[in-house]
């Protein structure tokens, strides 16, 4: 039976949890526990402060997305009074913050320092004091905007995605139903909180009245494992590159927590077979999930791969509120079989792109998001083959660089790799492989591995050694610099 969420917005749910169990732990930040009562008090203080500065319904509020109580409380406080939260990447340069503020017409900003052109500034160092005049007003409707989120922009300029309270809650419903998250769960969320993956996992924990441990990244394994043991963490939400790092740096040490960790969830990028197998081996008791979606409609499919044979392309069945269709990439007509453009419908999809009617019209039709992903449905489950734009046509064959990456990534010599489409004067399209070597560089051994594992037309014609694969802040391969390097327009740095 589907679980009923206790409100129509994240803020409403947190208010309810604060009323029911004010002493229960909502967050752990910097090693310190923050109760639901304290979190909600901080949120209402932010509401009052924003209102006193003239911020109201529909106004955009920039939020510097740090793993902190002020960030979470400001998000709740802003959305509570019907304003629109605009989280932005931690450490974003000031010029980029100004540009974003101008782009969305921000009325307020929670930021390290005042943002030129933004009337109201909120210090991010601490939550405001309890107000003399608390804000009291009508909560937002499900159809009203809750958030503006930036896409990661791995291809082209980032877009600003409009998400309603209803869409946000639909995603949370999907996560709750698919993972079976318990209300005494303690989740570790070390990923960037301006990105939809981590933001929704934070919100899901709070909506369920569970505890969320906030940590800024996984680079410090001391803090990761300290949090796991010190806070008795029962779930992890990590992007594939973070999981791969933990695997590479600590081998099977994560297995120490088998029996404690109830589930691990990943998203944002394809999850390599080697990583899946490692998790199955070190955490045999845990439920293992990989979800598929995009900022425009996240967590629309979820796969539990704990006990099933591997097919890296499978991302599972559509979640509770999602509908998946496959259409012809050119005509947009439904395809009865075969691979085509993935179209996502349901109540979790975006409302549009802020300030970009052309992009909205191109992507959102009849409440459905026409993605740039190539995939197919089989036995009710979705299989993703990469981005349509990235697919190379070689010798008449459609070749997904992601599929080639996954195959080559299994080579023991390769620490990580990325494959992009290039051009060839004879074949038209070609494939180029960028490799970060593991213990040693061995071009011949890699070539032999590729010949053994891949059809001839899938073997990259160019192989380049790099120090690191460029990634976005949420771990997704950033193909733009790779494509540029291939075209001789730059170098891939370390």
């Amino acid at each position: 039976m589907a679980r009923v969420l206790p409100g129509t917005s994240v803020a409403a749910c947190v208010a309810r949890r604060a009323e029911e169990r004010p002493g229960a732990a909502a967050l752990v930040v910097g090693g310190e526990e923050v109760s639901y009562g304290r979190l909600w008090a901080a949120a209402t203080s932010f509401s009052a402060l924003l209102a006193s500065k003239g911020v109201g319904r529909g106004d955009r509020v920039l939020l510097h997305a740090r793993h902190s109580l002020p960030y979470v409380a400001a998000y709740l406080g802003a959305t509570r009074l019907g304003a629109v939260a605009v989280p932005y990447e931690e450490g974003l340069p000031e010029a980029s913050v100004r540009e974003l503020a101008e782009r969305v017409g921000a009325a307020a900003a929670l930021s390290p320092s005042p943002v030129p052109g933004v009337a109201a500034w909120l210090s991010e160092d601490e939550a405001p004091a309890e107000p003399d005049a608390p804000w009291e007003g009508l909560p937002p409707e499900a159809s009203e905007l809750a958030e503006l989120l930036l896409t990661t922009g791995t291809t082209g300029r980032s877009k600003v995605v409009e998400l309603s309270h209803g869409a946000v809650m639909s995603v949370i419903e999907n996560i709750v139903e698919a993972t079976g998250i318990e209300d005494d769960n303690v989740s570790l969320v070390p990923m960037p909180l301006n990105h939809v993956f981590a933001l929704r996992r934070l919100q899901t924990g709070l909506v369920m009245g569970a505890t969320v441990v906030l940590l800024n990244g996984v680079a410090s394994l001391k803090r990761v494992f300290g949090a796991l043991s010190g806070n008795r963490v029962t779930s992890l939400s990590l992007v594939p590159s973070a999981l791969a790092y933990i695997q590479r740096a600590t081998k099977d040490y994560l297995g120490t927590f088998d029996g404690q960790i109830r589930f691990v969830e990943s998203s944002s990028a394809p999850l390599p077979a080697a990583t899946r197998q490692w998790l199955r081996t070190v955490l045999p008791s845990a439920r293992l999930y990989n979800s598929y979606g995009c900022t425009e409609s996240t967590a629309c499919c979820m796969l539990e791969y704990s006990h099933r044979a591997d097919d890296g392309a499978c991302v599972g069945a559509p979640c509770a509120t999602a509908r998946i269709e496959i259409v012809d990439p050119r005509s947009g007509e439904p395809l009865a079989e075969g691979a085509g453009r993935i179209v996502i419908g349901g109540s979790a999809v975006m409302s549009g792109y802020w300030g970009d009617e052309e992009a909205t019209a191109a992507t959102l039709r009849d409440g459905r998001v026409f993605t740039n992903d190539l995939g197919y449905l089989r036995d009710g489950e979705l299989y993703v083959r990469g981005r349509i734009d990235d697919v190379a046509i070689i010798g008449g064959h459609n070749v997904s660089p992601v599929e080639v990456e996954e195959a080559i990534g299994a080579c023991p010599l390769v620490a990580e790799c990325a494959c992009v489409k290039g051009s060839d004067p004879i074949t038209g399209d070609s494939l180029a492989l960028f490799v970060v070597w593991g213990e040693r560089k061995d071009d011949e051994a890699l070539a032999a591995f590729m010949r053994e594992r891949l059809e001839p037309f899938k073997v990259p014609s160019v192989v380049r050694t790099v120090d690191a694969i460029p990634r976005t802040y949420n771990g997704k391969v950033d193909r733009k610099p790779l494509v540029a390097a291939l075209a001789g327009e730059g170098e891939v740095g370390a």
Partner: protein
Amino acid sequence: MKLEKLVADTLAIPVERVSDSLSIDDCDEWTSMRQVALISALESAYATEFDIMESIEMDSVGAIREVLEAKGVELDG
């Protein structure tokens, strides 16, 4: 200065920035991939191997120094 130079070279930062207080938390260049590279570089430079717990501990230059000293490694040879 051998340790400082190794850290600086691996993190691609000026050696002047490297002190015992430099940590993974306050150095943007100290990413997870560079942490892996740093462990490997330290093992090679000091002809030693770190176990998992030692690797986990080493999230600052000071912590690295302590782990190496505990292993009886001569730091500035």
